[in-house]
């Protein structure tokens, strides 16, 4: 981006020397402004204005009762826990599928990717039905196998629900991380493996000394995206549990939605929580959460830069 901006500045200077007055240059580029008008209008109205306005709501409409930061902090971070599990699974699968001697790997890649292109609404409905306890259900099967002692109400049990939602979350988005890791593995030059083999490195040594260093940078980006994604989850939780039962699976986004638009009669599965709309409070929670996300993004970007710098220093003799 910076090189592009620099190029733009040079272009500008050149153009200024050529054409002279500002007005003439604006006139000469009038069509550019026309082409950018819809973009500018939409971004200003739906991206920039809402950010400023939500700050306004926070300052003027939130009566100060309640603690928006409380919900921003604790529970939904439990969801981030699922990232390492998912990333590890995705990495193992990617290592298997990346082997050039494995046939049909494109087919397998597509199969494992499918849940990622399916709407959360469908996933919510299908899993609610699969996990419900009528007839020959999952509970009945596990009872027969003596895995559990009594039927479990998977989405209605406050202790089980968060883990179920996390498990479904792993299944849902694994495809993205699989494809990211595959892309990362393909950026490692084959010659490095060749050289390692010639030096007598076995598979494990090749993995630790070629694959892991080769994946460090792209792995950080993948982790970065995964954390941001799981902190912004809404759809899956809303359709599976509506945040219930008793707030057990509430995440920031479902919380904000319930505060802003109310909930109660309307919620899927495990029963929602009755909340009166409280727009100021919702805005305060969104605002604090937005700032928190921005900080997390910044920290991660800094970490990424450190790794890059260290790598460049290491590359120097």
């Amino acid at each position, binding site marked *: 981006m910076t090189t592009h901006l620099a190029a733009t500045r040079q272009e500008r200077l050149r*153009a200024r020397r050529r054409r002279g007055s*500002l007005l003439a240059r604006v006139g000469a580029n009038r069509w550019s402004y026309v082409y950018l008008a819809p*973009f500018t209008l939409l*971004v200003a109205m739906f*991206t920039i204005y809402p950010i400023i306005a939500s700050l306004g709501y926070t300052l003027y409409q939130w009566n100060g009762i309640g603690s928006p930061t409380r919900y921003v902090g604790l529970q939904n971070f439990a969801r981030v826990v699922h990232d390492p599990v998912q990333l590890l699974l995705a990495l193992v699968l990617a290592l298997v599928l990346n082997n050039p001697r494995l046939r049909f790997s494109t087919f397998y890649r597509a199969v494992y990717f499918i849940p990622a292109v399916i709407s959360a609404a469908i996933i919510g409905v299908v899993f609610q039905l699969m996990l419900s306890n009528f007839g020959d259900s999952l509970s009945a*099967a596990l009872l027969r196998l003596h895995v559990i002692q009594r039927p479990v109400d998977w989405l209605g049990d406050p202790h089980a629900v968060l883990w179920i939602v996390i498990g479904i979350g792993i299944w849902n988005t694994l495809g993205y991380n699989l494809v990211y890791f595959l892309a990362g593995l393909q950026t490692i030059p084959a010659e490095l493996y060749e050289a390692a083999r010639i030096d007598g490195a076995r598979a494990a040594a090749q993995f630790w000394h070629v694959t892991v260093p080769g994946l460090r940078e792209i792995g950080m980006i993948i982790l970065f995206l995964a954390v941001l994604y799981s902190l912004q989850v809404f759809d899956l939780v809303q359709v599976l549990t509506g945040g219930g039962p008793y707030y057990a699976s509430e995440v920031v986004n479902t919380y904000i939605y319930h505060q802003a638009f109310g909930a109660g009669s309307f919620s899927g599965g495990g029963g929602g929580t009755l909340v009166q709309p409280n727009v100021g409070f919702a805005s305060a929670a969104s605002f604090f959460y937005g700032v928190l996300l921005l900080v997390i993004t910044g920290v991660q970007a800094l970490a990424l830069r450190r790794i890059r710098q260290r790598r460049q220093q290491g590359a120097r003799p």
Partner: protein
Amino acid sequence: MSVATGVRSARLWRPRLNRRWLPVHAVLLAAGFVWVYPFLWAVGGSLRSQAGFIDEGLSLLPRELDWQNYVDAWTGASFSTYFLNSVVITACTVTGTLLLTSMAGYALARSSFPGKRIFLVVTVITLFLPRGYTIVPVYDLITRLHLLDTLWSVVVVQVAGGMVFNTFLFMGYFITIARELDEAAQVDGAGFNRIYWYVMLPLARPMIATLGLFSFISSWNDFFTPLVFTLGQPQLRTLPVGLYAFVSQTSTNWTALCAGSIITLAPIVLVFVFAQRHIIDAVAGAVKG
């Protein structure tokens, strides 16, 4: 000679499955089957009778086929209306996104108008600001624009949501196109508009295909935006919102719920089957680039 036959025999030998790989394939196939099991089960469930649905539990194949569920969902639960709404919204969002972002990307790639630098800086900043937490002011804005209770509310919010990212992708693509092409067109007397329409857009076909696919998938699957704007208006609901509403409306008609899920899922799965390589390669490219 010997080299040539060596290559040929290698090629002949390769397509055969190496026996050493069979266990790997067995594991991958079994896990893949488990992976897509929920969808296969939903297909089975949508074809069961209601009694069969309870008896047969998590088994895959229905003992007796019952197509009535699709009729129940399509007419009884108004999935025909939801389907039409989804089609209209997705078509408008995809067209709007492609047109507006390619226009903006073209202008940014090809002209150095006064104010371009500050424009780019502000736009880049918005990319890093967290979105999705501003639904309250957006709802307020849509109300004041008198777009509430229309399908346009969803279209406008979706198009606006994809604006910055897609514009940057188009801009990047147009920058890679050789300037000689526009200069040749200029010599032939084509202006800014004609170059966009007759030179740049046809050349951007691969980018249009990729972004079209992604905005189709995200618009069709979108849950949050249509939930906020159409949940209270049954005649405006999209398929995902309609499905969500159907869960709470029916407490017993699970087979029709499965049928509704399949109706919602079918267009995406069709597109995915035909374009999976393109879609997955584009996802991979996002992290590589």
